[in-house]
């Protein structure tokens, strides 16, 4: 399950703000960098960070989902792009879609986009599993109390309501079939689904009333914004913030100065430059460096 659990790792030991900054820097780098070698390096760094944060196994469970999202991106790009000069397959005249010439450049472009999407998904999942949502939303609560508390409630209650729905479905399975309607028939399944939705909504409303009563007693009505915390910055806060800053800096520098040039159209252009090699080594090193210091990581 993609959900936060406190583990004894440097990323979990860092404050939520530092963890979120690290994940945002990762996402920014993915959005700004187009060079597939660098993207591959960031992907490797992300997997390494997942290993360092002890969440590699749940992250790997995302791979089928990532493939489901990424493969159509590549296929659609190859089919619809009319750019590129290196044709690797001719599908002939496709009527209103014109000539169906598939090019290597469109394929590479599709792979780059799919890689970006994949790394973004991995970075988001990594953040979900390593950044304490309550601590993060607490910061947000200082700015906008009610929306932030609603977000906290949603992250807490969605799994509870899913459990409720699972229980209801289980109870439904233990009911003997209605007379004259075979178990498993389409009609029965449709009726079951409709009733289940009805019962789930009724149950969710009941639960929301209980939660509302508790919130009333916890002072929701007259709530004030959470006090600012003045915790000293830990070594892990500092190292992840520094990594985030440097990662963002390198990504911005690459974007502005085109340090690792790459182009897909009309021909794939990926020159071997010292900067490309240096960045490909520096990016994952930067991402993984904060994980080397494991002092004081336990809760």
């Amino acid at each position, binding site marked *: 399950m993609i*959900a*936060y*659990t*406190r583990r004894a790792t440097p990323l979990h030991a860092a404050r939520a703000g530092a963890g979120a900054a690290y994940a945002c820097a990762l996402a920014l780098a993915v959005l700004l960098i187009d060079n597939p070698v660098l993207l591959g390096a960031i992907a490797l760094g992300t997997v390494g960070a997942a290993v360092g944060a002890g969440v590699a*196994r749940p992250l790997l469970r995302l791979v089928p989902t990532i493939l489901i999202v990424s493969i159509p991106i590549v296929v659609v790009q190859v089919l619809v792009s009319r750019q590129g000069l290196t044709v690797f397959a001719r599908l002939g005249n496709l009527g209103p879609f014109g000539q169906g010439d598939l090019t290597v450049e469109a394929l590479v472009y599709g792979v780059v986009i799919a890689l970006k999407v994949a790394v973004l998904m991995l970075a988001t999942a990594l953040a979900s599993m390593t950044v*304490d*949502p*309550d*601590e993060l939303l*607490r910061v947000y*609560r200082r700015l906008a109390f009610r929306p932030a508390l609603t977000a*906290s*409630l949603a*992250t*807490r*209650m969605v*799994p*509870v309501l899913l459990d409720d729905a699972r*229980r*209801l479905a*289980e*109870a*439904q*399975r*233990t*009911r*003997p079939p209605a*007379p004259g309607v075979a178990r498993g028939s389409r009609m029965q399944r449709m009726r079951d689904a409709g*009733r*289940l939705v*009805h*019962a789930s909504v*009724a*149950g969710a409303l009941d*639960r929301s009333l*209980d*939660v*509302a*009563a*508790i*919130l*009333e*007693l*916890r*002072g*929701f*009505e*007259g*709530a*004030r914004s*959470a*006090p*600012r*915390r*003045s915790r000293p910055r830990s070594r892990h806060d500092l190292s992840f913030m520094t990594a985030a800053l440097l990662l963002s800096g390198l990504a911005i520098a690459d974007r502005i100065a085109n340090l690792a040039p790459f182009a897909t159209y009309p021909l794939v252009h990926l020159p071997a430059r010292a900067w490309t090699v240096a960045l490909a080594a520096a990016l994952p090193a930067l991402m993984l460096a904060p994980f080397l210091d494991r002092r004081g990581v336990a*809760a």
Partner: protein
Amino acid sequence: MTLLELDRVGYRYPNTAVPALRDVQVAVEAGEFVVLAGHSGQGKSTLLRAACGLVPHFHGGEFAGRVRLAGLDTREHGPAQLGALVGVLFQDPESQLVMNTVRAELALALENRGGSELQVARGVEEAALALGIESLLDRPVRELSGGEKQRVALGAALAGRPRLLLLDEPTSQLDPVAGDELIGLLRRLNEEWDVAVVLAEHRLERCLAVADRVIAMEGGRIVHDGEPGAFLDWAASAAPALQTPAARMFAQVGLRPPPVGVRQARAVLRTHGLLDPETSAAPAPAPKRPARGRGSAALELRGVWHEIPRGPAILRGVSLRVDAGETVALMGRNGAGKSTLLRHAAGLMAPTRGKLSSAGRVALLLQNPSDYLLHDRVADEADAETLAREGLAGLAERNPRDLSGGERQRLALAIVTAGEPPAVLALDEPTRGMDREAKGRLAERLRARARGGEAVLVATHDSEFAASCAERAILMAEGRILADGPVADVLSGGWYFATETARVLGPAGLRPEEGAALLRARMAGTTQELLA
């Protein structure tokens, strides 16, 4: 000093005809430990909600009289303001935890009330230490057990150091170990922090020994208010179903005073020379193996395992045979594997190893009867014949969600047993939140079903209920069967999985009636000795 005062309070929920509270006059002093007793639906929960301002501010309805909490009138001060003075704990911990981590949960109320960083941090730390949950502070709430969640909810209620704690059946979803721990914790908070406690509870034998006072309610009125001993005296004549098992046993043999706990019961028996020190302190006898092949097997499990991929084994080689017409209680703490075993029996889960067979349909009643209620009319949930069999014919036009807990339980039972009678009826914690009278009726219905040839398998934490309905008991732990034998052997001689009568008398008696018979025999023996 009076902390809570209800002055001629009457209350009617919106769109209902019957008042939930009638002319309630009661006061709770600072530092008192008060137990609220009464059957389901008699106004205990409503009284607690009135005490914290949820009635009428949150629920609406018609309200009469005055409620004052530390001098604040609840008509003028809402729950948000009263929340600083009162902590509240309801039955279901899942609905009381609104944040993702324990630390954030404990901090929320303090932050909402504008506590400084230091006050919040200190409040969280002290509440966590008081409840022994400091090791849970950084754990996600969803990973906690039921008992841990209830402790965290109590911690959240205590974080602001309230002067009054209101608890509505907080142990109903806990196993005996976690339930006893929670009551012990409440007593410690009451003694060490001087927090006044008002606790609504059905299992009175669990909490009378720690109470200063018992208030009994019936029909929204207070019908008794006095010390625990006086309450048991009153209950013996006015409300026998509210008596504890030990008090019922004493009443049957005319022993006085009625005991408020096991310790007092044993002290009284010792004084009268009726306690056999040998047998009463004896360890649990080795249960005799259940007789095999005495009837036809209704359900048989042979070496059943259930192993979670990359997780623990929930069942570990369970072998079990239940015969037609047999009633078996399945006991053990939370997580012992009872529910998983029942799910396997009903075909909701498949064993990863081993074999399972049944002589016919296995009807399973899961823990929450509300999960079965999908329609807006009782008559749509089950056929008329089944409803009549469960005594629900008169409720056919009612909305199932408006039924009482006991009625919902009967309706859910009607739903799962509709049509052809099942070969096996399996019930998972069917007595949660039920009062003693409703439990008695359920036990009688289950015995009747067993007499009709169904095999009945009940997973329960309630030793008294198990003793009243089952002939055989199975004790489970960590997915294994620890003991399997006659209920009299399994439910005696232990501390947690034993009836109150057995804890008083030892393995010699399980139910109050058996205990009373034993005491009568001892009394006769003592008299003869004196005469001789």
